[in-house]
């Protein structure tokens, strides 16, 4: 059961990473990147690294997204 979940999350992770790289809309890319970080946090927890999972959830999904959105607000939205 856990293995199926892990594989699903890994597939989702790869799809997220590719779509971040391919997206022309930078705001959409940032939001997909937040989803990537959230899935990464769950995966860290499944890999028995709760320390990294907490940091990834707070920094990757939270602060990095906000700082990148602030940077987009100062510049252009389209690549």
């Amino acid at each position, binding site marked *: 059961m856990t293995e199926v979940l892990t594989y699903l999350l890994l597939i989702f992770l790869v799809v997220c990473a590719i779509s971040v790289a391919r997206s022309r809309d930078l705001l959409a890319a940032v939001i997909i990147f937040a989803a990537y970080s959230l899935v990464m946090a769950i995966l860290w927890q499944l890999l028995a690294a709760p*320390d990294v999972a907490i*940091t990834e959830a*707070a920094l990757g999904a939270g*602060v990095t997204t*906000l700082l990148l959105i602030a940077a987009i607000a100062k510049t252009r939205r389209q690549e």
Partner: protein
Amino acid sequence: MEDVIVRYISRMLLPFVQLYGLYVILNGHLSPGGGFSGGAIIGASMILYALSFNLEEGTKKLSHKTSTILESSGVLLYAGMGLLSILLGTNFLGNKVAGIPIGTPGNLFSSGAIMIITFGVGIKVASTMITLFYSLIEGEEGHEDVHH
């Protein structure tokens, strides 16, 4: 942003987020997490406050200048604990050998200087998050304000 739902939800959520951050910092020597993780949670909560209300409300609670001072004081607390061990006659950041009382392992107040050091790291990381956000949002005129 003038959204009533966002304001009320963030106002309800904020104490719990900050309490959890404080818990992660203070239990840094016992459970997963520590200064960096807990500081990131507290910093994210303060950014949430400044985002869901506006920047003026956020800077009223914690101004840019105060967060810059907190940033330095966190790292000074870390270095001060290290220098205290030198004053007590051992190495930099010496803990038990310097005679700092170590409680029973597993209790909240154990591990001597580690807890205070973790607290310093937490202050540093939390204020770094909010300072980064302020510097990025405020732009040029806010940046000059810091240096005066």
